[in-house]
């Protein structure tokens, strides 16, 4: 008999079992695989500083990182991917790589770097869920980690300017959402009719973006146009995290194809625009912005007087 397993993660809000992507991935997978986890939110404890979340504690072993935790659960015979074919397993790896590479930077930016969202939503939430005196610096620390991660993975060369990469990461993220939407189609889950680890990952990435009360987010608006993805998130919430018994929704008709095509064209146009902006930016004189600006600036002039 397996020892009791305890999961430490960030707490619940916005209608979700956790507001933190990685914690959500583990929680969703545990539900899919039937693993009984004791969920211990670390809010208002010093673990917000010391622990790397999410963290699974089972007996003497402590496992971190969603991929490692999922591997550990599989070894404990909680395997939601048991029925997948080899090819489906390969597709899972590929799509998870796509999410990490294309969607995560934009999500980090939306929640932690975008000035409006950070000051109106993210910082207050994390500050209010951290104990005194950590509430003064935990949000800032997490924001710095997020910014570093974006710049290291997406920044070009040694010039650490966030404005240069913003356009590209959002365009990549929108394309990634479109691709995930195409792949999901009208099904309830990605493979057959039962949820697997890919569903857990997609849910973990999309649910906060879908449910959070963001003030300025083109990415959130883009997601909301992809009906099958929002339906996917709501479906999982209702079926696995709701109080009632699960009742899977019937597949929706193909009215989303027209939307998807329009969105694809928009994303392609954006990519072309971004290429041009990139060229302009490179040829314009370099000057350091005062603070991260959500809107990339085109012109190279240092002062612009109103007409």
């Amino acid at each position, binding site marked *: 008999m397996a020892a009791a397993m305890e999961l430490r993660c960030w707490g619940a809000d916005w209608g979700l079992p956790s507001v933190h992507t990685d914690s959500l991935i583990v929680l969703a997978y545990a539900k899919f695989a039937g693993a009984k986890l004791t969920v211990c939110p670390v809010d208002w404890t010093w673990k917000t500083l010391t622990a790397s979340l999410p963290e699974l504690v089972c007996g003497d072993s402590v496992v971190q*990182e969603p991929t490692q935790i999922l591997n550990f659960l599989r070894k404990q015979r909680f395997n939601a991917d048991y029925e997948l074919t*080899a*090819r489906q*397993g*390969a*597709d899972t*790896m*590929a*799509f998870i*790589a*796509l999410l*990490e*590479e*294309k969607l995560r930077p934009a999500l980090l930016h939306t929640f932690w770097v975008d000035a409006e969202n950070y000051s109106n939503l993210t910082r207050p939430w994390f500050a209010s869920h951290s104990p005194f005196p950590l509430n003064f610096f935990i949000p800032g620390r997490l924001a710095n980690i997020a910014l*570093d*991660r974006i710049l*290291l*993975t997406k920044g070009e*060369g040694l010039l650490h300017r966030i404005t240069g990469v913003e356009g590209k990461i959002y365009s990549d993220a929108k*394309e990634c959402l479109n*691709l*995930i939407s*195409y*792949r999901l*189609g009208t099904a309830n889950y990605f493979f057959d009719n039962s949820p697997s680890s890919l569903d857990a990952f997609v849910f973990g990435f999309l649910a906060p973006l879908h449910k959070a009360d963001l003030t300025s987010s083109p990415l959130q608006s883009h997601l909301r146009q992809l009906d099958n993805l929002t339906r996917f998130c709501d479906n999982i919430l209702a079926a696995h995290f709701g109080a009632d018994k699960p009742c899977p929704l019937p597949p929706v008709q193909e009215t989303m194809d027209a939307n*998807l095509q329009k969105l*694809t064209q928009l994303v392609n146009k954006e*990519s*072309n625009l971004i*290429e041009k902006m990139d060229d302009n930016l490179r040829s314009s004189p370099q000057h350091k912005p005062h603070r991260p600006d959500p809107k990339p600036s085109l012109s190279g002039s240092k002062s612009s007087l109103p007409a």
Partner: protein
Amino acid sequence: MSLAAEAFVSQMAGKIPFIHVGNQVVSELGPIVQFTKAKGHSLSDALDDVQRAEMKAYMELVYNMLLSAEWCDDATAAEISRPRYSSPYSWPLGKILAYQKQWEVRRKMNAIGWGGKTLEQVYEDVNQCCQALSQRLGTQPYFFNKQATELDALVFGHLFTILTTRLTSTELAERVKSYNNLLMFCRRIEQTYFEDKKD
């Protein structure tokens, strides 16, 4: 459209491969693919949306996995990857660019949490990646049936490098070779697209 590829020192140094068309220089695989697409040549037009989604996903998988194998191990990087990367340039530019590339790759790997991996773990990751690719390829000539796409180009580029360079240990090449269909895939592409130029 005629492409003239020249290796010359430009302000885009550090971002090979690049193509030089007229007065434009485009570097790195992603932008080159987009550039040729804008000029009307695209390999993935015949794919439907679901296939395109899968193709992009596999490209991300290959890109990270195989990059880490080439650059993250000190011995491999010193003996193979850096000399190869710096070969088109004269000293000391080549050396500087090679170190810069290595530094960039390692920083990125650290940022996504792969920095602390041992060589064994890297080999295991490459193995899993090859397994995924092998299962996806199956018995088809290309990844998306009869036509070559960007994914085929990317996979060929990386696997060919691993197979043809004499690494410090042959373990990496052995692991790739154990997937027979991947081996045949590389040979087939080399013969079809590259051998006619050797006249």
